[in-house]
């Protein structure tokens, strides 16, 4: 239970960073926190008490494994998060090139 609570706290820290910070890079780091928290939650959901990691090392092993599906989902989610973070960072770099600042309060050419 404590571990799930720590996942939620990590999620809230990331959400706080996205909502309140003014520097663009800190917003991207906030997204990284949220993704860590969700992946951690996913991996913890598959845990079963007293079982082994889901790797078959001998041919006739008793199949007492933790749930392997969340681990596959976490792998996919990490790759997607990688793509999103890379795209976000390249947009942030180009914004710096145009606006000469990372401060989100100065980047407001669009209004209405």
């Amino acid at each position, binding site marked *: 239970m404590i571990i799930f609570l720590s996942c939620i706290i990590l*999620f809230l820290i990331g959400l706080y960073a*996205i909502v309140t910070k003014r520097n*663009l890079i800190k*917003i991207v780091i906030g*997204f990284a926190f*949220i*993704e860590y928290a*969700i992946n951690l*939650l*996913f991996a913890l*959901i598959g845990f079963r008490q007293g079982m082994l990691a889901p790797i078959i090392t001998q041919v006739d092993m008793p199949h007492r494994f933790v*749930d392997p*599906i*969340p681990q596959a*989902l976490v792998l*996919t*989610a990490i790759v*997607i998060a990688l*793509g*999103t973070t890379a*795209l*976000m960072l390249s*947009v*942030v770099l*180009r*914004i710096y090139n*145009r*606006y000469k600042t990372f401060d989100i309060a100065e*980047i*407001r*050419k*669009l209004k*209405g």
Partner: protein
Amino acid sequence: MTFIPLFFVLPLAAAFIIPILGKIAKSLIWIFVTLVSFALFIIALYGVAVTQQVPMLVYKMGNWPPPLGIVMAFDSLSAFMTLVISILVFAGGVFSLRYMSHYTGQWKFYTLYMLITAGMMGIAITGDLFNMFVFLEIAAISSYALVAFGVDAEELEASFKYMVMGEVGGLTFLLAIALLYAKTSTLNLADISNSLQIIGQTPFFWMVLGMMLFAFSIKAAFVPFHSWLPDAHPAAPAPISSLLSGIFIKVLGMYTIARLVFNVFGLSRANAPVFFNVLIGIGLLSIAFAGVTALSQKDYKRLLGYSSVSQVGYIMLGLGIGNYYGVAGAIFYILAHALGKGLLFLTSGSVVYATGTRDITKLAGLGEKMSTTAWSFRFGELSLIGIPPLVGFFAKYYIVLGALKIGFWWLAVVAIALSVLTLGYLLKIENNVFMKKGKAQAKKAPFTMRVAMVLLVVLIVLLGIGFQQVVDFLVGPAAHALLRGVEYANLVFGSVALGF
């Protein structure tokens, strides 16, 4: 039955062949993209024809049966969505030949264009929850890159804002999937549906539904969460704006909400009336707020963006009404708005290509100089306002009829009254741009751009005149597919057992 994976395999393979083609023969890229989108259209027509006889086709990936493997569950609603997607993708692709000549790096544009198509097609046909998330992220990331395509300052800012809001939505959806998996231990939509019927409408049920509704409301731009759309849709190149407003916000927002609310969570107006009234409320808020804001805009595409937010509210209204006429009206409205708004954004692209500005106070007197564009705009405008016999009228008519049938006569009156807002802001463009006499410098739009616009005009007129056939063959079966509710799960497992 093996045509089902082709819906996303063809665009995906095309997306990765295009960089190689870009190094060998640049001029072949556009022909290739047009051929692939036309092939998708033919396959979608075939899919519609097949689902007239068989209500649900299930395709097992790698031959693994459903709770173990990923399945594609193709019913009438999926067939309808793939048809609309393929029409808009084809029109946008034909339009892009001349329009994108102002931008650099065109092969990158076409790669992203095929990727966004693959993502949207995948969402429409999948029967597995995490697979839906993966395709949703593919489409979303491609759309973020496409909005930022011409790298001006405004476009980058719009894309960053869109990216942050869109990703918060996507991550909330992932969190909801994690919680749902913890409770039901399966990812297959049909299996989750069965488990949720056993669990019942507990607070956990409503929390997960609320999180998913929040995530998809951001993607579909309902009113408290719409603020990315008026910045992102004008900043994108015109064929992408027409794709985004026309079909993207509907596949990622409305189709997923409809599929989850009706088929997976098994709600209907009979067993959750309060929830459906909340949906009606969200719809009305979107129509009113965005409609009023659209009246004061001076930028052509920004006005159309607010109009999109407003019209998506009509679809939510139809879904919230919840009976056959309401849901059929909502689905018909998806088709009508896709054709109408897609056409309007293509006309905006044609105006921008010819004159270089989007400010309607500076554009005047284009009515004589760009006659095809002006007439296409008029047809799209009349369809969205709801003038018979164009297709938009019948969509609104079904929604109003649905409201009357559940006894919400005040809702019918309000829905018709709010159409006046649509009239107001579209007439603003019509008057200032196409009717006034003026001296704006313009030349006629190139041939392929005019072909794309005329194609959509022809579809608006034909589908309006033949609306009864459209309802019988396309919209009616799709509405029945939604209203079936939890029968969806039985059909999926039944189809698997029978072998198709």
